[in-house]
């Protein structure tokens, strides 16, 4: 039973892998525990990526429950966050280590 699940899982995995690369890319920069820009407009129902550049010396965790992502970004480095297609709407994100200042929103339309 479990090996069957594993097989189905693998099949889906490989069938789905090829069309993952072509996703549109956006950039957000963290500086002094704030995001710039604080608002990103993306097309709804399409996968996209956000490159998060952390210009601070301290690490930050890019997190959004609504977009189902959490990713640690070490100080003075950048990371790509991949996001599944979103229905139209507002999707807030935060820097979890500095939640009072590091806030932003993705608007899918």
């Amino acid at each position: 039973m479990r090996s069957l699940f594993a097989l189905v899982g693998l099949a889906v995995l490989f069938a789905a892998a090829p069309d993952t690369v072509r996703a549109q890319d956006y950039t957000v920069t963290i500086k002094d525990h704030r995001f710039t820009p604080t608002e990103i407009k993306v097309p709804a129902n399409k996968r996209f990526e956000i490159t998060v550049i952390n210009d601070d010396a301290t690490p930050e965790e890019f997190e959004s429950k609504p977009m189902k992502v959490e990713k640690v970004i070490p100080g003075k480095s950048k990371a790509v966050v991949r996001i599944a297609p979103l229905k139209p709407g507002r999707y807030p994100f935060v820097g979890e280590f500095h939640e009072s200042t590091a806030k932003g929103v993705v608007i899918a339309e």
Partner: protein
Amino acid sequence: MLGALIIVFREVIEAGLIVGIVMAATRGVAGRGRWVSIGIAGGVAGAGVVAVFAGGISQAFEGAGQELFNASILAVAVVMLMWHNAWMARHGREIAKEMRNVGTAVSQGARPLTALAIVVGLAVLREGSEVVLFLYGILASGTSGGALLTGGLLGIAAGAAFTALTYFGLLAIPSRYIFSVTSWLIALLAAGMASQSVQFLNNAGLLVALDSTVWDTSWLLSEGSLFGKMLHALIGYTERPSEMQLMVYIATLLAMFLLMRFARPSPRQHVAAAE
């Protein structure tokens, strides 16, 4: 200081719940304290290493290293939990019986404890590396670090207290039922981890099929709230599960159920053992 305390506490409770459940699930097994300690110590050491290499892990696999790392850790933990539950289905009854008769620890094989020590280690490693990075950030920023650091350490202490609360709460269950309860808790824990794992694969850009949201209960219980976070750790509560997450959740529960069913000794063996 309070802010740091809350951030660290939130990171620690997930691992704390797991440790509490594992401690309760191994009640009466000799040497469990040592195994769980090894798990925690290994996890803390691992968290430090992961934090140091966070940059490298993040850049690996075309920037999907961190997601693949998390997905793998969760997948290994799921397998270990299944292993433990299968073993417990076979031997739990004997342990519970001896515990009632003798009231002392029973010596059993070390096998399932290896599995659970690994689960504890991985849970501590995953959550711990974030705590280490956060605390490092405070230290690195210098100036007002003292109060924040105190807050962070208090957060860890609060997490440990929470673990103890989970443990003693579960101990209140009569020993006849404790292994069935902990087995089901572990099954739900594993299902939640499996569904989290496939979401990380999705974030890695690997498993992107069936990623539409099935429902949205964020209006009812936010996953970011303390209670939402606890339910997330305990039963895998997700405010917007994807189709794939839901399927994997149910499949894991089903696989766990079948496994426990087949591992259970047949009634005849049972009678023989009782005589």
